[in-house]
């Protein structure tokens, strides 16, 4: 399929023209697919800038004037509740757990790639197998434990659970990124008398740095998106943004423009992060197996 742009010389010019025309048609088809896939999201964005009256018309009015009312209402402009506490809860739970994941997974990945423990592949598979354990299977004991220790409705509980949820992925990703650091360079630095902190800062970090950043981003996205734990284990105080969103409709009745504005706001950090790290995102989600 890649040859369309380089037709072999022995082909007739008319064949080359057909190939070029076919290639242009397939390009248009790709554009059509891209736009139709994105259409629901674009629709959400457009609706978020409509007034409630314009948002609830059938057939839809594309020419309706744009307004920030949906966003203003969502942020409490009408005297309603503000989304700041849940947004801040989501932000802190995601950030703290990302830091904890890095603190735990970096040394582990070091032991699995640079100075390898024996049977390191078995250890890798243990990490992966915990990811295959569905969260519902441990939810009830965690709930009972939290209830009995007074840890319900507390973001630190979410931090711990999100860390366990993301740790296996992080270990796998980090392992694959740290394996990219040539061992010979590390040994050369050690022979020159460099201590471990120096080796890490001067040799490992520059090579593996971008990968480590991507890992952190993915852990952040997963924590930010999580609903089940947050729904069961938090209430009023530690409520996260996804939980707030699900409760949004029932408590206020359906205001479509406002709901769309809310969804846009909550998705914005993930969209920004995801666009920035498209390739690493796949690699992380496929646990480093696809490079």
């Amino acid at each position, binding site marked *: 399929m*890649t*040859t369309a742009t380089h037709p072999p010389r022995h082909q007739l010019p008319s064949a080359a023209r057909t190939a070029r025309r076919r290639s*242009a048609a397939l*390009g248009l088809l790709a*554009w059509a*697919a*891209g736009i139709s*896939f*994105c259409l629901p999201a674009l629709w959400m964005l457009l609706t978020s800038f409509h007034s409630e009256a314009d948002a609830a018309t*059938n*057939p839809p009015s594309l020419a309706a004037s744009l307004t920030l009312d949906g966003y203003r209402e969502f942020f409490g402009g009408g005297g309603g509740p503000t989304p700041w506490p849940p947004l801040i809860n989501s932000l802190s739970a995601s950030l703290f757990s990302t830091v904890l994941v890095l*603190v*735990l*997974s970096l*040394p582990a990945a*070091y*032991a699995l790639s640079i100075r*390898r*423990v024996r049977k390191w*592949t078995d*250890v890798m*598979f243990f*990490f*992966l197998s915990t990811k*295959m*354990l*569905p*969260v*519902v*299977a*441990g*939810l*009830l*004991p965690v709930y*009972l434990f939290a209830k009995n220790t007074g840890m319900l409705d507390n973001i630190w509980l979410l931090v*711990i659970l999100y860390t*366990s949820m993301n*740790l*296996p992925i992080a270990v796998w990703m980090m392992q*694959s990124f740290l*394996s990219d650091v040539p061992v010979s360079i590390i040994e050369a630095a*050690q*022979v020159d008398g460099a201590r471990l902190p120096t080796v890490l800062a001067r040799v490992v970090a520059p090579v593996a740095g971008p990968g480590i950043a991507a890992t952190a981003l993915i852990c952040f996205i997963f924590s930010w*998106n999580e*609903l*089940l734990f947050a729904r069961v284990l938090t209430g009023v105080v530690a409520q996260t943004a*996804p939980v707030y*969103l*699900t409760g949004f409709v029932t408590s206020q009745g359906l205001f*479509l423009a406002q709901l*769309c504005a809310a*969804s846009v706001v*909550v998705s914005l950090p*993930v969209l920004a992060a995801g*666009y920035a790290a*498209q390739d690493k995102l*796949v690699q992380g989600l*496929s646990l480093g*197996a696809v*490079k």
Partner: protein
Amino acid sequence: MATPTGPTPYTPRDGARSGRMRAWATRAPLLPALVFLVAVTQLPFVATLVISLFDWNSLDPEERAFSGLSNYASVFTDPALRESVLTTVLLTASVVVASVVLGLVLALLLDRAFLGRGMVRTLLITPFLLVPVSAALLWKHALYNPEYGLFNGALSWAAGLFGIDSPAQPDWISEMPLLAVEAALVWQWTPFMMLILLAGLQSRPAEMMEAARLDGAGNWQMFRHLTLPHLRRYLELGILLGSVYIVQNFDAVFTITSGGLGTANLPYTVYQTFYQAHEYGLASAAGVVVVIGTIMVATFALRVVSSLFREEATRA
């Protein structure tokens, strides 16, 4: 970082003691992560196993009693629970198959140079980057809503072009509940499959493709005999990772239908059994059943990943 200063490999110290110490120094960085994971994921599962053997409703705490495997018997005989097993299988299989096929078509479209390819790719991955709850709310209220959702809006707009006054305005969610959930999930997961398969397509050895082309192979022949075999690992990886993630889906089922109208999958049922019905024993047994199902899928997944991984290990 908790890494201890490593022993320098070129200054051998005497005896087995230093050897053992060195082994521990190598192992030590691994321990915090291992201990943490065992404590937070494995221990609760053991507790779930134990609770699943009890007849325990939290509204009736005095009645708690050991009941052996009777909760498991209930899971498999209770029609509602049995239906949710079926729903889970159906939901997972159809979403995975549809999103892999669509993802393959899109990956093939994007695996060629055309104007604005990067932009199209960005457009395509957007569904995957929306927060799952936002995506589910979007489908439920902005698209499926029978009165002013986009789908019915488009229907009445199209009907207006043909001068039809009262076009069909289906109530999508109540008329085809499972399909409604599946469509939203396929929309979200197709970009993931597309990205994995695109990575596969772009790792095809160019010389081989060129050689086949010079030998006179047609597009279909090249796809059938070169591309598809090369993509096999990536297809398997996509299918299995997709299965593991989608088997556990909670957000879409919870948001779009609240498990009603025959769309309750096992994760939702477990959630409901313990959170609303307070049947702790029964919920735990259902949770264990989910785990057994996932382990069956995951065994295949691990085998695939490990074959990818072995190549990686031999290369290193």
